């Protein structure tokens, strides 16, 4: 990574003007790319050049560019967020590639994530899963005392691990079945592990799984691709935990409908 040295790349990028139009791959040469750029900065440079030529820049999602918001995400050479483990596309640097490389860039592919434009997909399905049960009901008066509710250390640690999910959708994108079970299980678990999340625990898992199914995601066959792609290293064991919770909630709530009841 010697300073001043640049790379010449060739990009194959999925271009699609809108959700209803046909898309196709377009090849762009990307000369003079600094290895110190992030992947998104590389796309910025390519876009600047496209704009200078009067062409439509490549649309992609991004916000924080520091790996914490979950907005960025694209398939880079067949891997969600690219080749580095535990790394979002915005935190991926061009030094992860070689001079002369060809890079294929595609949007997340899933029925539940329709393409909006180019590399941008609509991930509102995730928000609807959260809205179905990813909350706790709480008293909103004055601030409670710190540590008023004891939380066991192991539960706090596990809940924290699950809460690291930034909802980027890489799990769905990497899953051969386009299943959202890693995402849903992280969201079910991070509240379900804590004492504050117990009141709604059964309804939460039943409703979130029902919404996940309605949104048209696939089902888990335990390939483990999601875990490998996750920039936050959410573990497959959360899916087992969600299955466990779902079975228990189903048995305990016989006769009740998953949709009724609620938080009143």
């Amino acid at each position, binding site marked *: 990574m010697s300073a001043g040295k640049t790379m010449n790349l060739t990009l194959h990028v999925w271009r699609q003007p809108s959700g209803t139009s046909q898309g196709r*791959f377009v090849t762009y040469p990307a000369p003079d790319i600094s290895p110190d750029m992030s992947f998104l900065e590389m796309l910025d440079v390519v876009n600047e050049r496209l704009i200078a030529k009067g062409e439509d820049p490549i649309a992609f999602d991004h916000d924080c560019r520091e790996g914490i918001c979950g907005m960025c995400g694209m398939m880079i050479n067949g891997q969600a967020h690219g080749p580095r483990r535990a790394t979002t596309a915005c935190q991926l640097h061009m030094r992860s590639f070689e001079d002369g490389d060809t890079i294929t860039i595609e949007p997340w592919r899933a029925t539940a994530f329709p393409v909006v434009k180019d590399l941008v997909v609509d991930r509102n399905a995730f928000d609807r899963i959260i809205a179905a049960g990813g909350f706790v009901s709480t008293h909103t008066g004055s601030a409670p005392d710190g540590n008023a509710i004891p939380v066991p250390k192991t539960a706090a640690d596990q809940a924290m691990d699950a809460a690291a999910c930034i909802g980027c959708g890489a799990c769905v994108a*990497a899953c*051969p079945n386009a299943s959202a079970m890693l995402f849903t299980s992280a969201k079910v678990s991070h509240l379900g592990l804590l004492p504050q999340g117990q009141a709604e625990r059964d309804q939460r898992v039943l409703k979130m*799984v029902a919404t996940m199914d309605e949104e048209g995601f*696939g089902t888990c066959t335990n390939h483990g691709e999601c875990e490998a792609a996750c920039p936050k290293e959410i573990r497959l*064991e959360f899916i087992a935990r969600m*299955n*466990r919770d779902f079975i228990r909630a189903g048995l305990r709530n*016989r006769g009740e409908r998953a949709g009724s009841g609620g938080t009143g």
Partner: protein
Amino acid sequence: MNWALRFLRSSIGLKLVMAVSGVVLFGFVLVHMIGNLQVYMGPTLLDEYGVWLRALGHGAALWVARGVLLAAAVAHVWSAYCLTRLNQKARPEGYRERMNRESTLASRTMRWSGVVVLVFIIYHLLHFTIGTVHPNFVHGAVHQNFVVGFRVIWVSAFYMIATLLLGLHLYHGVWSMLQTVGLSHPRYDLMRKRAAAAFAALVTLGNLSFPLAVLTGVVR
């Protein structure tokens, strides 16, 4: 009962049907393989075992077992079909490039190993249970049917291929099943894959040995 239907038709419910029926089938293949090991203990034992099985519970046990196995097989194939359809609908348009990181040959070929095993099961029933595709089937002469059946080389070859594919299916299936029913703990997760590999290897090696033993003349 409505809640149960709704529960079982959810994604996780369907997976449970597959896992539980898989466990029943898995229990059967293990016991079936162990039962057949008696072929190494002399030419009469397998015949006597057959007589004993048919007489068990005044002749009812065999039919109960067959009923349970048929139900499990139907449930397993039905849930596999439903889940496969769901998964195909979830991504109708694939990627131009795709690199696998964690999935295994076994996990990616479950559908195909499953279909071959299904065809094999039907053939196997016609071969050794009903006898229609056996060159010289004699009802009750289990040992002799076994030896005569496996002397046909392409039949033995098909048995061995199906056995290897069943091994792959079990290797992924056993650990997948544990995950589906929610048996997971960080301390034991490594053990789950090892246990799955050991079970799969046991069943595969046992079943592989039968046609090989006949072809090499160890069992005659």
